[in-house]
């Protein structure tokens, strides 16, 4: 299990993770009205069958940054002695969610097409 996680970490460059995580979180929040941190991690874990590990270490910094950028707002609800912060999209946040998901879909489509053309060629070409 540990090895697989390491492999996943190595597979995705930090730049790629940064970009996709933002898209992921924004679109998740676009589907749900408001969510708190733990809820988001659990949601991603369940939906992706744990293939994408949205770790706590990555999520909270991102949420704070998105809040600072004005894409998210928070609602605080006290639960006993602790405070639960619900994150919610702002107007700009909603726009960003659509733009980013469109962009990503376009990108993966192009990548897929491109990779397909590469892989349809004879694989042993370099031996000649």
């Amino acid at each position, binding site marked *: 299990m540990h090895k697989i996680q390491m492999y996943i970490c190595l597979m995705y460059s930090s730049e790629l993770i940064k970009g996709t995580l933002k898209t992921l979180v924004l679109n998740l929040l676009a589907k749900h009205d408001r969510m*708190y*941190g*733990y809820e988001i*991690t659990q949601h991603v874990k369940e939906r992706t069958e744990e293939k994408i590990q949205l*770790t*706590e*270490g*990555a999520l*909270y*910094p*991102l*949420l*704070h*940054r998105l809040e*600072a950028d004005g894409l998210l707002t928070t609602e*605080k609800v006290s*639960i*006993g*002695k*602790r*405070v*639960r*912060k619900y994150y919610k999209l702002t107007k700009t946040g909603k726009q960003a969610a659509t733009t980013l998901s469109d962009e990503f879909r376009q990108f993966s489509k192009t990548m897929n097409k491109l990779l397909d053309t590469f892989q349809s060629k004879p694989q042993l070409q370099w031996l000649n």
Partner: protein
Amino acid sequence: MAELNEQQIDLISAYIRQHGVAQDELHDDILDHVCTSIEHLMDGGDSFEKAFEKTIKLFGPGGLKQVQQQTFELLTEMNETMKKVAFAFGLTSAILLLAGTSFKLMHWPGAGVMVVIGSALLVLAYLPMLLWHKLKESPRNETLMHISGFLGLTSTAIGVLFKIMHWPGASVTLITGMAVLGLIYMPIYFYKKYKVSSNKPVTLSTSLVAGTCLILVVALINVKSSSDMNRGLSLISDQLAETNKGFDELNVLYDRLGDDQQAMQIRSRADELVQAIEDLKTHLIAQSEGITEEQASNIEMRYVNSRWIYDIPTHIMFAEDENTLPYSIYAVEDKIRDFKEYVVDVYQPDMQGTIDSMFPIKLDSGYEIDGKKTDWAKYHYYHVPLIGVVSELSNIQVTIRNSEMQALIYMISQSDASDPPSGS
């Protein structure tokens, strides 16, 4: 559904804080996250301790601290233009300050302008941007540290600028700045670093650079003024000024000569010359020190803070515009020549050549500085610090009075010889 009690929440909260999440907003997030996770695990049958351990493991070793660090990094990422602008301001001011200081040391023109612009950029642009960045980057309990650092640096920079430009108030600003840096910023900084014990190499090098800068500044200022040298020279200067006051006794000699025309001529010339030099001295001290002429006329050299500056005295004595012309050293030189003629004239014609060549103020000797020919005025007063200028001017006053006295004594002896008092 399991629900944690208050003690358990307090325990978790303390644990999170202890392991590196100090920022309140983030702390709330993580606390809720950990609590919820524990509650879920406890629902699955785990004990509190077991669930706590499992949840914390998810963050990995040192993970909590990393979350905070990453949050700060993300939050403070400046956008590219801002980074470039800040960098440009910092670099420009550093280059200007360095060039200005070098020019200053070499006495090349333009040093003042560069230092002023460089400091202005530093104080008005770069340091505020740095403060803004630091405040955003750091948790709230470091606000005092950053603000004190900013105020200390700003005040020190302004102090250095004023000191270099010889503007009034430099010392107070400089001392205040250094006191703030030394007594507030540094202790908090090192305490924080010691406590967190995670010296990032960047901040360490920054503090190193800052420290070196401070040392350089202090060295630059102290180089010129070892206290022993100060005391010695101030003593000479004050002593010369004191000697000048002793010449009031010349009145007795004038009384003996009665209304001798020649004596009266010499007296008026000498008085005028000595007074002109006194005015010049007062003016120089007043301008350099930034005090009134009345204060300047009574101050002793050892209390004059600006005694080591030379550019204001030089600027005044060698100025060519009309406002400062009365204080030109060349005006003094002309008056000395005039006085010398009258003094020499007192003596018998066959002595006049000798008296002339023995006159102690050598206006026309060949003076040289670094192998270059120069005149009497430049040799004695150009780029000479205030203390030297004032001492030399006092010395001239003493010389004038001495020559005057010798001439008077000579005149008295002559008149006594030709007109012996009755009864002898």
